[in-house]
């Protein structure tokens, strides 16, 4: 199982992508819990704000697009965790 976080937009308009192979993580059960608990089907559309980031988060079969201003709670936790794994590489 793979989680992909893609961040686009921002003032610079530069896209950055971070990936994690969950099955290869030492704490994969904790990853699975976090992913299962995400409100994948409860994301509502929101008006974009100029120059804010846009996050696309994919973990088959799920995919959501979040404005930066919508990133909080479990979504923030997931993004921080995915970035954290990539920073260690």
């Amino acid at each position, binding site marked *: 199982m793979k989680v992909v976080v*893609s961040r*686009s*937009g*921002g*003032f*610079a*308009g*530069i*896209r950055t992508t971070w990936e994690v192979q969950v099955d290869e993580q030492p704490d994969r059960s904790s990853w699975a819990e976090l992913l299962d608990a995400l409100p994948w089907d409860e994301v509502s559309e929101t*008006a*974009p*704000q*100029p*120059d*804010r*980031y*846009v996050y*696309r988060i994919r973990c088959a079969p799920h995919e959501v*697009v979040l404005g*930066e*201003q919508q990133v909080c709670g479990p979504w923030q936790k997931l993004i921080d965790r995915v970035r954290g794994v990539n920073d260690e590489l």
Partner: protein
Amino acid sequence: MRDIPIRDLRAAAHPSPAHPGARGAAEPVRGRLDRAVSDAGGLERLPGRLVRREGQPPGADPAVTEAWEGLGYTHSLFWNMFERDSIDDQGLTLEATVHYGRNYDNAFWDGERMVFGDGDGQVFNRFTSSLTVIGHELTHGVTQFTANLAYEGQSGAINESLSDVFGSLVEQHSRGQSAAEAGWLIGEGLFTDQVQGVALRSLKAPGTAYNDDVLGKDPQPAHLSGYIETEDDNGGVHLNSGIPNRAFYLVATALGGNAWDTAGRIWFDTLTSGTLPRTVDFAGFARATSRAAVTRYGAGSREHDAVIAGWSAVGLGGGLGAGSVARSGIPPVRPSVSGRAVVDPGSHPE
């Protein structure tokens, strides 16, 4: 010439005592500069702690000073060149927050204020360091209060382009640079020395601002043929803005002189015409600039011709009415008299 913007700035900060319309008075003084800068202290909470208001002396924090001065220079362009009194034309306080987040590589407009990160020091320096960024963010405010262009797809790319255009004009105006002298870069100096690039974007040559081992190459197209269809970035608003950006650069340099005097005036007239549809596409925006040029300078004027040539060079010249009614000798209709265009060789209602 070079000291004029600074003189304008002083005049706006210290309005004449002959107009005592200070806060609380019945008749507010138009064009009075009112700024407020707050410090988020590394948190992602707004507005942060208020650290400078109008009348207070500068402090030691360079980010606060840069934001403060940038707000002033932006106000100066819009008030002294276009007689627009702040972003809402009603003297709204210009508000900024600096030191947003930790290592935050971005600046944005949240609908009420400009917000600036400090950058991570690896790729980006602090975002207040380029005046074009400050002018860009405040222009999002002007757009919000006028055409309120939908921030996605082509109208979003036009929204972005308008912010780049006026962001660049703020810098040119503050430096007293003509169109020929200007660098036409957005975010010059934002990249650290570790990045191979001069800026984030170039209006003169979209797609050439950076070419870096890690970041890749500046992806902006300079012509409609390179339009990028994508679901990222609200439909590529920061990518496809290169197309209208280059059109403006071509118009401004063809006309020569100071870009804010003529090309900037046409684009400002277009933005504030009250007739620009919220979801206008590139072709509709090109027609609207052509109409604005006709309204102010006349059909077949060199200004009108330059607008048509500029859009034609980026693949958007179709339907602009070059050579037909444009040559008919119909005189210009000044907006101060009519308030709207009545002479329109490219009449294609959106």
